[in-house]
C-alpha cells in the first residue's frame, strides 16, 4: 500500500519537474529554431501551436551565413573576437590579482587587515552598473574611451573572487606552508608548486565568474565603446535590434550564438560554479 502510494507520488513529482523544465526550455528552443528559419517565417507558425512552432519547416542557415560574412554594419566575427579577447584577458589577469589578494588575507596578519577586507567586501556589494556613469566620466578624462583597456581594467579586481580565494586558502593546512617555508622557498614558489594544484576547483569557479561577468556585460561596453570594430557581442545584437528591428532571424542567430558559449561552459563546469558561489550565501 505504502509502496504504491510512493510510486504514485514520485510520478507526480516527475510530471511537475518535467513541466517546469519545459517552461524553462521553451524560449531557448523557440529562439534556436527561429535562427534557422527564413526571416518571414519567424512568427508564421507560432499559432496555432504545433510541432511547426518549434521545428523550422524551411530549414536554412542563411542567417548564420549572413552574420558571419556581412558587416551589418557591425562585423559579428569581430565582435565575437572582442568578447572572447576581453573575457580571456579578464580571466587570466583577474585570476592572478585576486588570488594574490585572497592569499594575503588568508595567510598573513598585518596592520589594517580588517579594514582592507571590509573594503573588498564593500566593493562587491556595490554592483558595477551603479558606478558606470561616473566611471565613464573618469575613463573619458583618461582618454580610454574606445580602447580594450576601458573594457578589461574595471573588471579585473573582483571582491567576490578575492573572497572565494581567501576562503579556499584558509582551508589549506598550515603544515604545507610551514614545510615549504623551512625549506626556504619564496612565496611565489609556494603558490605555484603547492597551492595552485590544489586550487583547481576554486580557480574554475572564479574563472567562470570573471568570464561570464565580461561576456554578459552590456551597460558598460555600450557606453564605453562607440566604434563598430570594438563592439562586443551583446552590444552587436542590441545594435541590430535597434536599427534592423525586422531582421529577426539575424538577431536570433547572433543571440543564440552569443548564448551558446556560456551555456556550454556551464554544462561542463556547473558543478564548480555552483559549489563555489552557493557557499557564499551560507558563510
Amino acid at each position, binding site marked *: 500500500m505504502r509502496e504504491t502510494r510512493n510510486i504514485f507520488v514520485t510520478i507526480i*513529482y516527475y510530471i511537475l*519537474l518535467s513541466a517546469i*523544465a519545459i517552461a*524553462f*526550455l521553451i*524560449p531557448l528552443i*523557440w*529562439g534556436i529554431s527561429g535562427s534557422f528559419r527564413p526571416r518571414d517565417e*519567424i*512568427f508564421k507558425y507560432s*499559432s*496555432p*501551436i504545433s510541432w511547426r*512552432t518549434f521545428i523550422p519547416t524551411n530549414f536554412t542557415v542563411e542567417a548564420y551565413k549572413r552574420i558571419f560574412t556581412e558587416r551589418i554594419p557591425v562585423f559579428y566575427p569581430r565582435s565575437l573576437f572582442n568578447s572572447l579577447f576581453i573575457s580571456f584577458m579578464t580571466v587570466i589577469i583577474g585570476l*592572478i590579482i585576486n588570488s*594574490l*589578494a585572497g*592569499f594575503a588575507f588568508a595567510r598573513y596578519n*598585518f596592520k589594517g587587515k580588517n579594514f*582592507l577586507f571590509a*573594503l*573588498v*567586501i*564593500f566593493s562587491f*556589494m*556595490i*554592483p558595477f*552598473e*551603479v*558606478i558606470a*556613469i*561616473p*566611471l565613464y*566620466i*573618469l575613463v573619458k578624462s583618461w582618454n580610454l574611451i574606445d580602447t580594450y583597456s576601458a573594457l578589461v*581594467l574595471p573588471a*579585473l*579586481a573582483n*571582491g567576490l573572487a578575492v573572497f572565494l580565494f581567501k576562503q579556499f586558502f*584558509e582551508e589549506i593546512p598550515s603544515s604545507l606552508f610551514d614545510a615549504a617555508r623551512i625549506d626556504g622557498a619564496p612565496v611565489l614558489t609556494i603558490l605555484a608548486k603547492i597551492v595552485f594544484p590544489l586550487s583547481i576547483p576554486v580557480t574554475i569557479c572564479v574563472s567562470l565568474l570573471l568570464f*561570464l561577468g565580461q*561576456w*554578459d556585460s*552590456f*551597460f558598460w561596453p555600450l557606453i564605453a565603446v562607440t566604434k563598430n570594430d570594438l563592439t562586443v557581442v*551583446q*552590444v552587436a545584437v542590441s545594435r541590430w*535590434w*535597434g536599427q534592423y528591428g525586422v531582421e*529577426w532571424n539575424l538577431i536570433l542567430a547572433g*543571440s543564440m550564438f552569443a548564448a551558446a558559449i*556560456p*551555456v556550454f561552459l*556551464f*554544462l561542463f563546469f556547473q558543478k564548480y560554479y555552483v559549489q563555489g558561489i*552557493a557557499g*557564499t*550565501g*551560507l*558563510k
Partner: protein
Amino acid sequence: MICKCKLLSKATPYVLLVPCFVLLFFFKFLPIITSFYESFHAPAYLGHRFIGLSNYIDLFTDSVFWNSFKVTLLFNLIVNPFQIVISFILALLVNLKIKGIWFFRGIYFLPVAVSMTVTSVLWGLMFNPQGGLINAILNVFGIPAQPFLTSPKQALFSIIIMISWKGVGYWMIFLLAGLQNIPQEVNEASLIDGANPIQNFFYITIPLLKRVITFVVVADTVTNFLLFAPIYLLTKGGPAGSTNLLMYEAYNNAFVYANLNRAAAITTILLIIASIIAALEFRMFKPGFEEY
C-alpha cells in the same frame, strides 16, 4: 641582512594586495567619489561650476524623476518577493531525493547562463502581440491576445516575467545549498514529533534558512534594482513611463540629454540606496568574519 628579510616578509602581504587595491581604487572607489563630486556641479555646457544641491532639487521637483522613482519601487516590491517565492519552490523541488534530479537542476539553472541582452531580445520577440509565442500559448488556454510590452498596464509585469526566467535558477542554487545544509535528523525529529510537512517547513526549515534567505533577499534586490538592458532594448521606459526604471532614467540623462551631472545625481541616489542595502548585507556577513 636578517633585518632586511624581516622587513620583506612584513611587506609581503601589502605587496600581494597592491595590484588589487590599485584597481579597486581607480575603478570602484574613485567613481563613487566622482559621482558625489560631479552631482554638485553643472554640466560642461553650463561651465561645470559648483552648484550645490541644484541637481538634486531639480530631480526632486521633476515629475519624470518621481515617476521613475515610484516605478522602481513598485517594480522591486513585486519582482523580489515573486522571484524569491518561485526560487524557493524550485529549490524544494530539486532537493527531492529522486533519480535524475541533477538533470532538472541543470535545466532550471541553464537560463542563468543566458545574458540579459539575449533574454530581452528573445522575450521581446516572444511577447510580440502579433504572432508572438506567448499569445499563441495563451490561445491554447482560450485567453485572447494580450498587448504585453506595448501596454502601460502590462509592460512592467511582462518584464518581471522575462527577467525571472533568467533569474530564479540563480537564487534557487543558494537556497538549495541552504536546504542541503540542514541535517537530515532535524527534519526527521520534527516529523516523528508529529509535525506535518507544512508545519515542518514553516517552523523548522524557514528559521534554519534565515541566513541564506536574508542573503538572497538582499542580493536579489540589489541586482533587480539596477535593471537596465530590457528597458533600453524593449520599452525605452514606456509606454507612458510605466517601465522607466531609475537606471534607465540615469542613462537617459547622461547620454540622451547629455547631462552627465544630473545623471551623476541619480547615480548618487542609487549608490546611497545600494549602500544601505549593502550595509544590511554587511551586518549579516559580520558574524562570519569573527569565526575566522
